[in-house]
């Protein structure tokens, strides 16, 4: 059983996935952030691999990517850091864009990611046609889960297809928007109810627009949990003590 499947086996509701950009706010913040997140209630940690042109991300996460790149973060450096992680409690997934992964070498990337304890991948600009014909088999070969995104605009037929291709969980974008947009959460409840009623194979995590205890609880009513990204990056901005900032942030969500 994959680590992600274990997470959802042990906990079918209120699963918390926290996103942070690797190498942000400092190049070597990553391990401290992972350790503090997993010690304080994060079930899944989603590490963003910074990219110069992250077109599915909003301005906050994009800015964190620029900082991380300026700090010198690369995929190779991230793998080196992950190799030094002593205790792994949470599941770790990597989120990023195709171009840096292709340059690293797609198969080498999967092999090295699996070797340093990565459990799954989110590559929003890898479409299902290319996944099915070329990349999916490589991802599976190394035992990694692959998570597709669905949006309120995704047809039922397509949701079923993406669910069938995904493993670990399915990422439900709560509105058709780049990360960090704040739209009325009530408007998306219908969509989440629809997903819930489809009895999909994978657990569902809601992302985009989750920023505090209220939105987290609201999302968990209709899904197995939620993903917080932009709000956490905002909290980290200018932080001089990432451990303390992270602890305080998680308390605000979970307590």
């Amino acid at each position, binding site marked *: 059983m994959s680590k992600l499947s274990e997470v959802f086996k042990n906990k079918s509701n209120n699963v918390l996935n926290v996103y942070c950009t690797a190498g942000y706010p400092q190049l070597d913040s990553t391990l401290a952030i992972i350790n503090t997140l997993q010690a304080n209630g994060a079930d899944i940690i989603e590490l963003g691999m910074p*990219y*110069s*042109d*992250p*077109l*599915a991300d*909003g*301005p906050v996460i*994009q*800015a964190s990517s*620029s900082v991380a*790149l300026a700090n010198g973060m*690369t*995929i*190779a450096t991230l793998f080196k850091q992950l190799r030094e992680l002593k205790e792994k409690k949470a599941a770790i997934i990597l989120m990023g*864009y*195709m*171009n*840096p*992964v*292709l*340059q*690293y070498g797609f*198969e080498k990337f999967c092999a090295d990611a699996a070797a340093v304890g990565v459990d799954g991948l989110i590559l*929003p*600009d*890898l*479409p299902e*046609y*290319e996944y099915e*014909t*070329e990349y999916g088999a*490589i991802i599976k070969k190394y035992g990694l889960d692959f998570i*597709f*995104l*669905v*949006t309120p*605009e*995704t047809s039922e037929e*397509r949701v079923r297809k*993406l669910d069938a291709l995904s493993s670990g969980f399915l990422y439900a*974008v709560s509105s*058709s*928007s*780049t990360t960090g*947009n704040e739209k009325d959460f009530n408007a998306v409840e219908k969509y989440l109810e629809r997903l819930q009623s489809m009895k999909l194979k994978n657990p569902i995590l809601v992302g985009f627009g989750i920023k505090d205890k209220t939105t987290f609880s609201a999302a968990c009513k209709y899904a197995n949990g939620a993903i917080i990204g932009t709000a956490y990056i905002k909290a980290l901005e200018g932080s001089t003590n990432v451990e303390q900032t992270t602890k305080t942030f998680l308390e605000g969500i979970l307590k």
Partner: protein
Amino acid sequence: MGTNVLEPVQEIGFQNPNEHGYYGSFGGAYIPEMLQRNVAELKEGYLKIMAEPSFQEEFRQLLKDYVGRPTPLFYAERLSAELNSNIYLKREDLCHTGAHKINNTIGQILLARRLGKTRIIAETGAGQHGVATATVCALKGMECIVYMGEKDIERQAPNVARMKLLGATVIPAVSGSKTLKDATNEAIRDWINNPVDTHYIIGSVVGPHPYPDMVARFQSVISEEIRTQLLEKTGSENPTHVVACVGGGSNAAGAFYHYLDELSVQLVAVEAAGHGITSGMSAATTQLGKSGVLHGSKSLVMQTEDGQVVEPHSISAGLDYPGIGPLHANLFKSGRGTFLSATDEEALEAAFHISKIEGIIPALETAHAFAALSRLNLTPNDVVVVCLSGRGDKDLATYMKAMGL
């Protein structure tokens, strides 16, 4: 590339991508799910809509009465004598708004209306595509938002003023390097956030499938006219060479289009070498790029070893792009196209020379195509068509500086 699924399929030739948008191993639609509906709607609709008689009629009528087509094919006598050959100039500089860009924006605005869209977004570098988009939005009474890098807004003040005069809203792209690639990112983000009412008019043969094919088809009127005009003037519809400058590659795609599978016609694409290919200040993507994914398609991309997209350099803002359309990447990789380059300095010299001997001030982009002509070893038997993609008025400030004025 591990499997053979995406390898070149020879039967479909160089003109059409396969059903997944691939020209050989380049193309596709590498888009996040948030764009899926919009892109799928276009993919399913564009060929059908473009084939409708009412669409064709309106498109042709506007190209004739509004754009001023057909544009002339002009025999450049003095240039021909100098090169001891036969040089014809396809005068896209005489299109309304001063460049070929409007062929595509006319086509896309008609398509957007038939898809029921009410709001238009576009990206622009130098501002030519932005002006062409603002123009057709004014013509059709549509809301127009143009994303432009903050740095380009400073560098291209007259075009910013033109867009505003035409009623468009110009939004500065302040992320990343604050130039064309970032303006493109911002336009894509806008589209993600406005998935229902908005159509994104991409200005070149780049972006996710079906954009490269759609834009190439709208621009293909250039080579359609060249064939008829050349037949009239020379008795043959085929030249020996077609020469065009390439940034993303829209004027080249249009000028090459009907000759892509006429293997006797040599297709010459001229990229911007900037300060020189190896100078670190260049935009010659086929020489410096590697296979990668940028703005929704797989193509050749200028990037670091870690796969971060780099900022190119060219004196000409229209060629200052770190990628190239997948159609062209396939022409390069397959050897069907001849890829040359010209430096900033060579382009300036060519612009001055053509102005003096032909009485035509070309755009800096086009000047790159002229600069490469002497490298083709032309003979008196050759018939060469140069796509004169735009006029040089917009580059006057650069020309004045180079002249010491």
